[in-house]
């Protein structure tokens, strides 16, 4: 009987509570806090559980302060949890065993991990020594990544002279040279232009396809999410609100769909069909309840001379916003 492949990341009831000092504004309160300092417990992550399968790319989404980065920091051994359990490649990450650290990578957007004053190639060499990468593998990967990202002419420039996009490419290359099996990407495309975002996304997708690495990605750019992941975990106030296929997210959290129509003689009372989002003489976008989409589309085709009609899911950004705000949740789905 084949041995089942162990999930590379297993999280069970993971909790992190920070004790933070609090005080009211003002000099009096400031003096008072000298003698009587008050603290508040902030639950950054509250008993979350999930599993990542081999070669899976999962989007880990949430608003600022939701607990995403805290979770990633616990899974990469930077933070000790307050409670719960986690295993990454079979290791308890906060024990920070070298065997684990050699097999994972953490990339944080806009965070420079390269030697600032030296060309990136020197940092690559440093990582080779730190991670103990055999020379042959190192050279093969380095050549391939430099080629794919088209950075041959900038690897020899001091990092301080690189643009943000160029630096981010170098960060990614440096993070992948040791061939990590689990990749934690915390907003890797933040601050990059659209072309650069697309290029990095493709690079990570190729890495995942070539190596079978598992990827946990946080991003506020829905373009990253829709292009890279098939499954999302949504976290807010430290708790998981949704864990499932990206395709089912709209179905579950948006009770509406968008009907876009181009027509010549549209009726005036379009509001009776739903919320009119956009209207011009020949074009209209209406947000319509999911269960009324067919009827509304049929009616519009009857009453107007329609040249084009499209039925679309609500944009991902709006769906995510609705998950966080709790608006528009269809209680009949779960």
């Amino acid at each position, binding site marked *: 009987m084949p041995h089942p492949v162990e999930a590379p990341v297993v999280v069970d009831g993971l909790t992190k509570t*920070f004790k933070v000092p609090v005080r009211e504004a003002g000099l009096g309160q400031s003096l008072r806090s000298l003698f009587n300092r008050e603290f508040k417990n902030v639950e950054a992550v509250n008993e979350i559980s999930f599993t990542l399968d081999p070669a899976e790319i999962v989007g880990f989404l949430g608003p600022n302060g939701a607990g995403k*980065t*805290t979770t990633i*920091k616990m899974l*990469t*051994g*930077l*933070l*000790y949890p307050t409670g719960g359990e986690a295993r990454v490649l079979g290791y308890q990450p906060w024990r*920070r065993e*070298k*065997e684990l*650290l*050699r097999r*994972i*990578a*953490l990339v*944080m*957007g*806009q*965070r420079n*991990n390269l*030697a600032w*004053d*030296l060309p990136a190639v*020197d*940092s690559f*060499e*440093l990582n080779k020594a*730190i*991670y*103990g990468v055999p020379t042959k593998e190192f050279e093969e990967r380095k050549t391939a990544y430099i080629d794919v990202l088209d950075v041959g002419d900038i690897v020899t420039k*001091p990092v301080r002279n690189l643009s943000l996009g160029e630096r981010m490419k170098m960060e990614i290359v440096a993070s992948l040279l040791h061939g990590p099996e689990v990749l934690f990407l*915390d907003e890797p495309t933040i601050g990059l232009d659209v072309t650069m975002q697309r290029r990095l996304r493709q690079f990570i997708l190729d890495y995942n396809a070539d190596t079978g690495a598992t990827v946990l990605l946080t991003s506020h750019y829905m373009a990253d999410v829709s292009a890279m992941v098939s499954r999302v975990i949504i976290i807010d106030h430290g708790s998981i609100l949704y864990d499932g296929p990206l395709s089912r997210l709209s179905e579950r959290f948006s009770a509406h769909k968008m009907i876009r129509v181009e027509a010549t003689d549209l009726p005036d009372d379009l509001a009776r069909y739903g919320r009119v989002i956009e209207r011009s003489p020949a074009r209209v976008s209406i947000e319509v309840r999911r269960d009324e989409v067919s009827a509304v589309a049929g009616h519009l085709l009857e009453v107007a001379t329609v040249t084009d009609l499209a039925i679309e899911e609500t944009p991902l950004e709006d769906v995510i916003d609705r998950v966080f705000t709790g608006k528009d949740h269809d209680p009949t789905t779960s």
Partner: protein
Amino acid sequence: MRIGFQREIQYRTRAFLMLFGFMVEPIIYLAVWTSVAEAQGGQIAGLASGTLAAYYIVWTLVRVFNLAFAPDAWEWRIRRGRMNEFLSQPIHPFHRDFTMFAGGKFVFTLLWIPVAFFLTVLFDPVFEWAVINVVGFVLAIWGGFAVRFVMLYLLGMINFWTTRGSAVFGIFIASELILSGRLVPLELMPDWVESLAAWLPFKWTFQFPIDTLIGRLDPAEIVTGIGMQALWAVGVGVIFALVWKRAIRRYGAVGN
């Protein structure tokens, strides 16, 4: 270590200016103490002006050699979230920092040669050395660096409990100035300071390597001194290892 070397090479002008800046402090001490020595018939507390000149010329090399990772840099590292980078790699930050600083020493030593030449022409030092002094000095200067590095690294751990640990560094520097032979050779200090210094690690990081090279120590004293350096480095290193385990649990991973 190679990256540390390359980093200092990259900024060789900065390294040279730093070295040049370090000359100001010993030149002031030299000017003061050689004047005092000459006013007292050429000697002060048994130290001739030529010996004092040799002391402060070697001082410049020892000073740049025992530059170590300062506790306030830990504060910066923690407050800016830069610790994440170090903790996510399969290498202890101590190993990484120690080798990085050690690599830079080779560049500083190269740049020190013209500085030493200039000071030698200016102050006419007197060295009384044998091969044992030179060999002992090579070990002692690295030993001094190791002791000072591990002490400052341990001190840096305070920043895991409070992110305002700079004040303690100030106390360390003041103590070092008086108890290490950095300000003046310990023979010129009151007896109680000299006695106290014998029980503390500071003199093994400054005066001991200097005295070794200028020929003021016999072979037995050199071996004893290196032994003391090893004891302090290992002793403080063990304390650091224990504190590190607790410190890392407290790490809040602030910033990104």
